[in-house]
């Protein structure tokens, strides 16, 4: 057993991880806080970390365009994983941090990953002024309305400015997002309205880019049911200004559990539950030894959505400790636009 195989164990408790949902997210969460319906999220405090919860992320995806019209995708994610529901200073802190960054072009997919121990100042999040960082990667600003985003990998760096004046979107019921029929849930809010300007540095040279970005904030202690194996998740920017976040959690035996949020062009937010949105795989591709659906038909009849989404780059495989597929998509059909697709648990 090498360290690579070992670290999941180390990182995410002693449980036999891989058998129980993606990245151990379906395991028991003894001693950790549990999301409760009716909790009112408070900002800016809730932009910061919640160490009493087992898992948390600051998840940003951006659909960008270069001067020549080329599509680019950018991902910046900071995960927090708690071994115990407490904070301690120094090396004995049970808070472990993990960062994923990626740049996707139609032909290439650049990935970098960072790991850090909490308690020694190598990684962490402060709510106000807002700063999330691991090593040299940063997502920081005075608050969430204006952010500087940077990351670097062996073959890329990026530096982006994100701006929005729009309010946050609370998913589920006032930010309480149910993930299974058994009641697994997370706190989940988003900021889907960023406009982006900045620069990518890729092996072929610097690329000035503009575009749109979407920030997801989610924390929980057991976001998946034990029987759930993975999820397919989309965040779509429609050309008419509307936004759609939707996911379906795949259960053993082929059942799924879905949910999502529709944000109209005018800013009206409507969340929907299981069964309202359908996602149908249209085309699979072979990536990293797995068959991954990279083209989907997505229907949300309540909002007249019947679109086909297709990966900008089929090979947007995140070859990280917990591998998954995450990449930009093009939208055609009833609506046009760009978005992000994330798929986990395909083994």
């Amino acid at each position, binding site marked *: 057993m090498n360290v690579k195989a070992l670290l999941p*164990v180390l990182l995410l408790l002693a449980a036999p991880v891989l058998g129980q949902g993606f990245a151990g997210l379906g395991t028991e969460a003894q001693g950790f806080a549990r999301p409760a319906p009716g909790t009112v999220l408070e900002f800016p405090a809730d932009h910061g970390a919640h160490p009493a919860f087992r898992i948390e992320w600051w998840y940003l995806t951006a659909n960008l365009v270069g001067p020549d019209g080329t599509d680019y995708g950018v991902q910046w994610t900071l995960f927090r994983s708690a071994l115990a529901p407490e904070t301690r200073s120094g090396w004995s802190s049970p808070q472990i941090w993990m960062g994923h960054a990626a740049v996707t072009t139609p032909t290439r997919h650049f990935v970098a990953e960072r790991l850090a121990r909490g308690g020694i*100042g190598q990684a962490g999040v402060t709510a106000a002024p807002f700063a999330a960082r691991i090593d040299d990667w940063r997502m920081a600003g005075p608050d969430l309305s204006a952010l500087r985003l940077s990351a670097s990998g062996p073959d890329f*760096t990026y530096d982006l400015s994100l701006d929005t004046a729009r309010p946050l979107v609370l998913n589920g019921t006032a930010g309480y997002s149910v993930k299974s029929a058994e009641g697994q849930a997370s706190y989940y809010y988003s900021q889907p309205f960023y406009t982006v300007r900045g620069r990518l540095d890729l092996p072929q040279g610097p690329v000035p880019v503009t575009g749109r970005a979407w920030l997801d904030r989610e924390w929980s202690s057991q976001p998946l049911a034990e029987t759930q194996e993975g999820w397919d998740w989309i965040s779509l920017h429609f050309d008419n200004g509307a936004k759609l976040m939707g996911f379906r959690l795949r259960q053993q035996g082929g059942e799924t559990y879905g949910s999502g949020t529709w944000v109209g062009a005018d800013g009206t937010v409507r969340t929907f539950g299981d069964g309202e949105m359908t996602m149908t795989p249209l085309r699979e591709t072979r990536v990293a030894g797995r068959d991954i659906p990279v083209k989907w038909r997505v229907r949300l009849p309540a909002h007249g959505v019947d679109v086909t989404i297709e990966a900008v780059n089929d090979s947007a495989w995140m070859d990280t400790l917990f591998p998954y597929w995450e990449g930009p998509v093009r939208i055609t059909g009833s609506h046009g636009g760009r978005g992000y697709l994330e798929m986990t648990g395909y083994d």
Partner: protein
Amino acid sequence: MIRATLAALMSHWWRHPLQLVSLAVGLALATGLWTGVQAINGQARDSYDRAARLLGQNRFATIEAADGQRFGQARYVALRRAGWQVSPVLEGAMRVGDLRLRILGVDPVTAPPDAVPRTVTGGGSLLPFITPPGVAFAAPQTVSALDAASGLPALRVAEGLLPGVLVVDIGIAQRLLSAPGAVSRLIVAPEQPVGRAPLADVAPGLVQRAPQARADISRLTDSFHLNLTAFGLLSFAVGLFIVHAAVGLAFEQRRTLFRTLRAIGVPLVGLIALLGAEIVVLALGAGLAGVALGYGIAAALLPDVAATLRGLYGASVPGTLDLSAGWWLGGLAVAVLGAAAASAQSLWRVWRMPLLAPAQPRAWARASARSMVAQSALAAGLAMAALALALWGQGLVAGFALLAAMLLGAALALPAVLSALLWGAERTATGALAQWFWADTRQQLPGLSLALMALLLALAANIGVGTMVASFRQTFTGWLDQRLASELYVTAASEAQAARLRTWLAPRTDAVLPIWSVEGPLAGAPGAVFGVADHRTYRDNWPMLRIQPGAWDRVAQGRAALINEQLMRRAGLVPGDMLRLPGGHALPVAGVYSDYGNPRGEAMIGVDLLTALYPQVPRLRYAIRVDPAQVAALARALVEDFGLPPDNVTDQARIKAMSLGIFEQTFTVTAALNVLTMGVAGFAMLMSLLTLSTMRLPQLAPVWALGLTRARLAWLELGRALMLAALTMVLALPVGLLLAWVLLAVVNVAAFGWRLPMHLFPADWARLAALALLAGGLAAAWPALRLLRTAPADLLKVFAHER
């Protein structure tokens, strides 16, 4: 045809089982000693590699402080925040009872894959690993040795770790080593992000070092292993002598058979192929036995080797063997190659043998004078080469080449020298019997010369190594008396305890002398810097080889440094030169002291300068000067009143005993190999005499017929062997002393960095001479006894012509 031919060829061995035994045993001994030594070396090297792998030093670059000292973890965080993908390691030594532990603190989260022991798994989770008291992974024997120890993390067995190493989380290591926030070095991941700031901007004072192909420790232990290899090679050569002789005889005695076979139509190529196959089969059989023997030798010697390496170099090598299939196959290959080399000449002769030449067997023993001339020429050439190497050679390899040239040259010259001596004796002999005795001995010399050469090598090696060891022991003992002048040595458990200890000791002793040191590079190699107090203890006793006037004053004032002999030789520093300390501070060298038994370079500076340059130096160890009459009482009071653990209080006598123990162990293996080499030589002698004895009858029978009894002849045979052994011993003496000189003045200097005065020990020589005579006598006793019991009928066969 092949079967019939093979049967004809092999029948020889059944009729001459002694030759078969001689060949097999010779080959098995050669293979056994060689593979045994290789097994020991391989095991040690494997341990070094594992040590290097443990820290990732062999594959990953590291970042260290320029002065080699620990640094704060804030610099690690700063580097990470600048994008540097590095992972911290804190390393240090800790004593639990009598066990010296190496604590290895790692960060499993940031360590590159495989940079951290794979075994830090065990199915346990990260949480107990990082939460005090933590979890420590260790080799099974270390876990059981630490069974009842308190104050340690929970112990988990991890296969593949070196004994004495505890792998813990870096946070736990900081607690165990009382080094909060400290980092020894950073492992640099092979993949780094683009566009990160240069190291010097982010963390001035830290330097990056390339991956080291070899562990530091293997640089230090090279000499030791070279020493073993040299012995293995010597034994191998001696063993091959035996094989060469046995094969040569077997071929010579079958010359008639070869001719007959060829005359009746066996093609030459087929004959050669069959003979080659015969050699290979014999070699495989003997090789198998040899490899098994090698395993036995290695298994028997390894615990001593491991103890030596631990004592002398601090290298951890398990005392048990763990050999790969490759080693076994390699051993067999060595046996086959050795047999092939030993029989090449004989095969060549068969190849060149004219079909129609008279088939009368040429007496094998009657080697031509020409070959002796060629041998002597070769010996002279080797002597010249040895001289050239002695004059101009540099380094360890040249030292061993010198040894090889010298020994081989001496061995090759032996037959000619002995022949000349015997010729002289023959000329001065008056009686017919004496004249015959000398002439006949000379006649036999070619047949015995290989065995005698083996004996010469074994004796010379014995004298040489014995002289070196004894010289070393004598010098070392005297040196220890000088070096360990203080009465008591104590170690505090923590800085706070050390401070209390100083206060407590002050009114109770004559002086409390700090033994504080930091490790760091000196002249580009691992070294250490000690702080020395300004005290008479040093001025009066310290074993100085060279010293400038006023040196101690200048050292005390922080204006000069003293260095050990190793550093002087390695760095070419002489008093007056400037020495760069770890971190860059430079001081003039004011003197050189001898420092036997220490593989590293060392420097001594004033203790005030040491604490100024290296504020974090641990101040735990002290030497105490006190009235010798009060030593026992003070030691007791330190334990009972002050509360030091008994293990932390050591008196002078015990340290001396420990040092001598380590020293003795260092040469245990050498001594064992020495005995084995001697055994091989004795065996060679026995085999040669036995094979010769079967060919001796035609030479002895006429003498018997002319009026000597068999008893008289047997005594003469015994006397001949004893005389040859004695002569060889006499000739081995100067060779052995030369060998000792080379070992002391060339090899030791190159290997360890110190030169020892040579002392002579004639009593040892007398013992060895007795041993040589015993070996020769024992080897000759059996053939002599056989001669004594030979039936007259067998002797008469020599004269028979109608049978």
